[in-house]
């Protein structure tokens, strides 16, 4: 049986006296579209940061496709693409170079990288802007560039931290279709969002975190069984 895309065991992360994540355990199967929901400050971003290596856990273990992200960190990171919520592109690079240099940091270069960068720019509707600077892109285009950058090194898992925050309805629907297509191609997607209809629409499995603890993890279908609305379930589980 293949290793889960993400396997978190008893993760604890504290900042001084504040416990951001308390004994979190999660399994995300390969190829899954996984929703990770919770109110602001519940521990979503801390969990993501621990997976990608930006936060150092106090205890617990994280494996990505079977690789311990602390011990076999190069192998684990190689398989993850991160699309953060904020736009953190390198301001000295052109849009095409943002992708090519990101691939370089992942140890990839050569004509295949350039071809993939061009393919992604084309697929995400950014080809005509390739030589320009990211500061001239619209909000929606920056969102798409964030996603393209996360995919440039062909990760097997992509982590999306609120990928549709602040975008209009049309673009949101467009991004949803892109994400469905990527998931259809076999990519595992780990999504955090505050738009519950987005999670309901896209995710096969949902975990909800509250005050650093997982309060439920089950299939979307079972979570909203008997005609319940995800919003009501969410509010019931996260209410203080």
């Amino acid at each position, binding site marked *: 049986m293949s290793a889960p895309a993400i396997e978190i065991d008893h993760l604890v992360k504290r900042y001084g006296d504040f416990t951001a994540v308390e004994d979190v355990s999660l399994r995300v199967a390969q190829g899954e579209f996984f929703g990770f929901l919770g109110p602001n400050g519940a521990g979503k971003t801390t969990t993501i940061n621990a997976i990608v290596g930006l*936060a150092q856990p106090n205890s617990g273990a994280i494996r990505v496709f079977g690789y311990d992200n602390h011990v076999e960190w190069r*192998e684990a*990171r190689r398989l993850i693409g991160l699309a953060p919520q904020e736009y*953190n592109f*390198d301001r000295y*690079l052109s849009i095409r170079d943002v992708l090519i240099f990101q691939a370089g940091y*992942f*140890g*990839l270069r050569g004509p295949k990288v350039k071809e993939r960068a061009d393919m992604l720019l084309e697929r995400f509707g950014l080809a005509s802007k390739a030589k320009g600077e990211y500061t001239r892109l619209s909000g929606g285009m920056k969102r798409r560039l964030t996603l393209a950058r996360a995919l440039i090194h*062909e990760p097997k898992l992509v982590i999306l931290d609120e990928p549709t925050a602040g975008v209009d309805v049309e673009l949101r629907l467009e991004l949803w279709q892109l994400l469905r297509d990527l998931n259809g191609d076999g990519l595992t997607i780990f999504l955090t969002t505050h738009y519950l209809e987005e999670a309901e629409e896209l995710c096969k499995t949902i975990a909800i975190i509250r005050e650093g603890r997982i309060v439920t993890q089950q299939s979307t279908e079972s979570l909203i069984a008997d005609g319940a609305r995800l919003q009501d379930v969410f509010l019931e589980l996260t209410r203080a």
Partner: protein
Amino acid sequence: MIQEVPSFNRVALWTLIKREMIRSLKIINQVIWPPVISTLLYVFVFGLALGSRIQTVQGVTYAQFLIPGLIMLQTIDSSYGECSSSVFQGRFMNSIQEMLIAPMSAFEIVFGYVLGSLARAILIAALITVLGAVLVHTWPQNWLLYFGVLCMVSILFSSLGLIFGLMAEKFDHLAVLTTFVITPLTFVGGVFTSAAMLPQVLQRLELVNPIFYTIDAFRRSYTGESFLPPWLSLSVIALLMVVALGIALRMMAIGYKLRT
């Protein structure tokens, strides 16, 4: 495209070096031309105008004496400035996260920044060296010493820049070291004067100024003369370089102000 992950990510190292070089060229009017123009002004004002009243220093004209000191001055300034501002900007804009989530070790990130900074220092030094040859007819006599000191000093101050780039909370903090330490020590460290010209008390004081060792050793590559034995200066520079580089590597390895 998925490939085996190498134990040393040399592609990432080279990518970061290239990124630093692109950055320098994108802000060429801010980082490359100013040191060249200020060197020209120093040579004209101090070297050719005022220096004509001084006979010779270490067996060369005062303008020729100035050139190696000015190269060191700009090497120190550009190496510190490149690394400190690039790392701080990366933290401020969070673009450094592109490297932190990639399979890049602390060694690869630190050397990427430091070697990128060294490339800028070599470009500036080369331009000033050519200026020195054209304007005042001076040229290094010992290229090995020239490159050896240039590289060690650039690595030393790039590492310091990286350390301060990681520690700083705002841009203003980056200027603390340059304004209160590096610039004063550089100006009294022998750029404009030979230690032999100073009274004995000041000569002794120069020995606690680390920048004095860098200028004294570098000037020897031009004039063949130095106040201190070259082995002593080179040892001091090498020791400081290893310590600064070690601290920078350690800070990157623990993710100081980068990983929570």
